[in-house]
């Protein structure tokens, strides 16, 4: 007879639960302003929802092609070409997935052998480590620093290289820091990838949300297309998180491998969501522009206000997160987040959840109404004043 524990695989037993879940406490409290939400505050524009409803009315309730609706893949191909100057064939180089999260899972499972190392600059999105581990790989953290606005330090990347290094994960604009990798940094990383024959998993889910400069897709750099697995989706830019719809664009030999796993594990992404995404690409780009403008204004307001109340914050070039330093308070980021929640009812996410370099910072999402942001700043100001007098 096995113990209950033995029913679960050792790999899963050793998997750390997402640190963010600890802050579920906030959900049970009244009057909390949450800056802890990692998704847009916009509801999916009506015409996209309507397109999905129409597809149901018309009876499109069957499986689609494994790789996704042909029309949708064609639209994605055109969009990527027009918007980011990267070319992928709809027939065999684009795969529609259940969110960018499944896309990441497929990418790691398709390329990693037991023990292969993956360089992961941190602080970073909470899933990378676990997905790499589940796929048999070994996540290798590469630190970045708030002093350089969380740009990737090429020397640190080089130090982290080993014979087993197979791939590197790039997330720009970054969750949680909002940092957008500079063109210079991208070029250095491209050279390194070329020199050491690395695969680059480019998580470009926030590509639509850059505010100060136009986004550079990693695959658009010279010679990078054949070693890049481009991951993106509709969640952030199109405000479609709950639809769970992402995609992968990659050279056909990568895509073929990922499609094999995909067809056995999920068959295809939900049809009704694919129809909404089709409408999003055909007629929704003006709304994306409107949302981007609104985030930019809120970022400007919020980041400057944070700096004014003594929470020093680099200017995040993209996504919808501010990542201010709380180091002057001599609290850990977890203590800070907990105290701020209990005393002033503002929910933020401790930076340490996103990796050791996130210690000393908190992630605040500004995808919240201006009223809420103003109130949050007021409360945080009060909190900071209390801290400095106590």
């Amino acid at each position, binding site marked *: 007879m096995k113990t209950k524990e033995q029913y679960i695989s050792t790999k899963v037993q050793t998997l750390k639960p*997402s640190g*963010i*879940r600890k*802050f*579920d406490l*906030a*959900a049970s409290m009244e009057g*909390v302003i*949450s800056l*802890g*939400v*990692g*998704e847009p*505050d916009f*509801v999916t524009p009506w015409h996209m929802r309507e397109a999905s409803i129409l597809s149901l009315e018309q009876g499109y309730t069957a499986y689609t092609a494994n790789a996704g609706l042909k029309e949708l893949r064609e639209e994605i191909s055109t969009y990527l070409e027009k918007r980011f100057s990267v070319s992928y064939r709809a027939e065999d180089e684009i795969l529609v997935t259940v969110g960018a999260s499944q896309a990441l899972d497929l990418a790691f499972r398709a390329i990693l052998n037991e023990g292969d190392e993956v360089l992961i600059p941190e602080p970073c*999105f*909470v*899933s990378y480590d676990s997905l790499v581990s589940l796929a048999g790989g070994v996540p290798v953290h590469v630190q970045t620093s708030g002093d350089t606005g969380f740009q990737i330090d090429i020397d640190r990347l080089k130090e982290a290289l080993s014979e087993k290094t197979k791939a590197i994960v790039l997330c720009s604009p970054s*969750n949680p820091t909002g940092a957008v990798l500079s063109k210079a940094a991208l070029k250095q990383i491209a050279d390194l990838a070329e020199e050491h024959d690395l695969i680059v998993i480019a998580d470009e889910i926030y590509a639509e949300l850059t505010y100060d400069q136009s986004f550079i897709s990693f695959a658009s750099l010279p010679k990078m297309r054949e070693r890049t697995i481009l991951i993106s989706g509709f969640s952030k830019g199109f405000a479609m998180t709950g639809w769970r719809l992402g995609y992968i664009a990659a050279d056909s030999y990568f895509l073929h491998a990922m499609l094999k796993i995909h067809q056995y594990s999920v068959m295809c992404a939900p049809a009704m969501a694919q129809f909404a995404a089709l409408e999003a690409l055909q007629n929704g780009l003006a709304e994306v522009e409107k949302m981007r*403008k609104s985030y930019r*204004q*809120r970022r*400007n*307001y919020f980041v*400057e*206000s944070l700096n004014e109340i003594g929470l020093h914050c680099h200017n995040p070039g993209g996504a919808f997160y501010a990542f201010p330093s709380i180091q002057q308070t001599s609290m850990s980021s977890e203590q800070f987040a907990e105290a701020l929640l209990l005393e002033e009812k503002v*929910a933020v*996410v401790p930076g340490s959840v996103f990796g050791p370099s996130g210690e000393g910072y908190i992630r605040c999402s500004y995808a919240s*109404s*201006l009223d809420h942001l*103003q109130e949050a700043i007021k409360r945080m100001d009060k909190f900071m004043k209390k801290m400095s007098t106590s």
Partner: protein
Amino acid sequence: MKLSEKEMEILEILEEDSRLSVDTIAKMVCLSVEETEGMIQKLEKEKVIVDYSTTIDWKKVDGHEGVTAMIDVKVTPKRGVGFHEVAERIYRFDEVKSVYLMSGAYDLSVIIEGRTMSDIAHFVSEKLSTLDSVISTTTHFILKKYKHDGVVFEQGDNDKRIVVSP
């Protein structure tokens, strides 16, 4: 008049919420408070910003239920002044909230507010129809406002997102 990008942005922000402080708006568009104030004053002086007003759901206020009607008015335009003169004669009445010149089956669309239906009937029969240039009127009473100037009336602040997510 041609506006700068920042001026456009300020207009859009104010159109959405005219109660935001200059300080907040300045931060949103990355300008100093003085620059922002200067731009707003200029836009007010040039009458690009015509007025600041508040959308109120009077239906919720006891004794202020009121009645709103849209009246389609056919008129004979006058030589030299076209529709202008008759429009002016109509919009001078305080109870008239809006007057638009329309393309299509009629000429002027007049929106009028009164306390009761008979107030409006009185206005139409005594004031509006009796004007020389007015040929005919068709009055439509508004039964319920669902959405007004981009704002949905009965919609709570219901954020459906989970409180903390990665």
